[in-house]
């Protein structure tokens, strides 16, 4: 199933990536060709097959409800691109 330019714009919005017009064109054709290759999977009969979400057959990995030290706030904020005192600062959030 070919990918349309509208699909690319919808997906770019979901992924919050701004694309140039040229990138949209390139991606439309590249994604189409990759997804076309992926159509191969339709040749297979997967009736009754369980998906492998985890290759390891492990369940119930837990930790005890104990408090461990947090990061000192200076460490937390040292990589912040913008800060306002002890807060991370971001441009105005529009609902």
């Amino acid at each position, binding site marked *: 199933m070919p*990918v349309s330019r509208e*699909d*690319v714009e*919808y*997906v*770019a919005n*979901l*992924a*919050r*990536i*701004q*694309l140039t017009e040229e*990138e949209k064109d390139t*991606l439309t054709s*590249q*994604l189409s*060709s*990759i*997804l076309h*290759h*992926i*159509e*191969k*999977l339709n*040749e*297979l009969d*997967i009736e009754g*097959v*369980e*998906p*492998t*979400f*985890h*290759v*390891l057959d*492990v369940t119930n*990995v837990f*930790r005890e409800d104990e408090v461990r030290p947090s*990061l000192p706030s200076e*460490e*937390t904020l*040292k*990589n*912040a*691109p*913008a800060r306002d005192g002890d807060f*991370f600062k*971001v*441009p*105005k*959030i*529009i609902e």
Partner: protein
Amino acid sequence: MKTNKKEGADPSGLTAHELHDLMQLGQLRCTDLVRAVFARIDRVEPKVKAYLCLFKENALEQAARVDEKIERGDELGPLEGIPVALKDVLCTLEGETTCASRILKGFRAPYEATVVRRLRESGAISIGKTNLDEFAMGSSTENSAFQITANPWDLSRVPGGSSGGSAAAVAADETIVALGSDTGGSIRQPAALCGIVGLKPTYGRVSRYGLVAFASSLDQIGPMAKDVKDIALMMNAIGGKDPLDSTSANIPVPDFLTALARDLSGTKIGVPKEYFGEGIDDDVRESVERAADRMKNCGAEIVEVSLPHTEYAIPVYYIVANAEASANLARYDGVKYGFRFHDANDTLAMYEKTKSHGFGQEVKRRIMLGTYALSSGYYDAYYLKAQKVRTLFRHDFEKVFSVCDALIMPTSPTPAFRIGEKTDDPLKMYLSDVFTISANLAGLPALSIPCGYSKEGLPIGLQIMAKPFDEVTVLRVASAYEQNRGERLGKPPLDGDEEN
């Protein structure tokens, strides 16, 4: 082939186990070793460009402490004082962790990866962070935002990827050992293209805490080294359950040194016919067939087997890996760390421009593909379907491992290709992962070991796989082959004043 210039071998050219013996015997000071490695780096880095940053000061300090231990007559651990290079996808307290991406340039991790801590505790000395394809997405290291790493065997060719920096550094003796990461072949393929040994452990064998995630259900960290014994030493140090990683297995780590062998009597080695079909270079095919003969000579029984779903590996991989990646990379948004595009009036604009400017083309492409595969209406058709086919792979391997102990096949269909050769067609690049992907999908341990050269003198890698948590068999087959290889392997022709 390289010849030694001085009487004593340049220690940078030796293996960890050889260096350990020399240091323990007092014949080599750790500080001299570290200096020799940095000197080597100074000489060849301008050509190879394997490193994104170096930890010279810290490394020399640590070396001095190791020397004090030696002087005291204390016993050194097997990796103590050994320089190790870390793929820049592993969080370190020292320096930056960039994943070769503009979006993480400047990021200083306030914590270190579990494997980094374990190596540090074993006394190994981190000497720097190596180059990679951005966020480990690629097969040539050409997708790095910062520099292109060259294959030490032919500087016009790629070292493979995504752990190309680590592979090149080991191959060029710019480090003794290295860590890489493997999601679809990113340790094994560059190891093959650079003529070194690289192991992707079983999924869950090594903690992923501190490994910047690409595809959570496929990623593994693994050692890259000059011989199998060094691989075993590294695995002893880094393997084992980690309470910080829920997907790390609660399975005891054997002493992998005990796996090393010279003989393969009683070992059944499977050759899957689907891995020897079309599209493989003649040189590669012959090399691998010669290797199979060598194994027969040491007592192995070679059997033909089949992995019927092999042709579906690429589509499954590209859905699962990229779907998970699209979610894993969502966090790079300019809010908390890394690059932010500041000229934005609201958060939406900030997200969009930050990602647009911060991510490279390949990363964007994969995020788009992954997001599409998970988007409304497509989950069943893509992600769910791919995970079901993944089960079929596991069944294929279970069947095969009931009749043989290990599998061998080529690591890569071709030796190293030229820089720029495959960058215009992403699908072409993806298809070169065909031999390595299955091991990630089924979670199996898989290793690449040099098995010969192409007519142009480029390294060829042999891949050895075994069933889950059976690294011992992988290492046994690899070491026996290594001892009986019959091919004298050399070093890349890097030094300008020597003949090729």
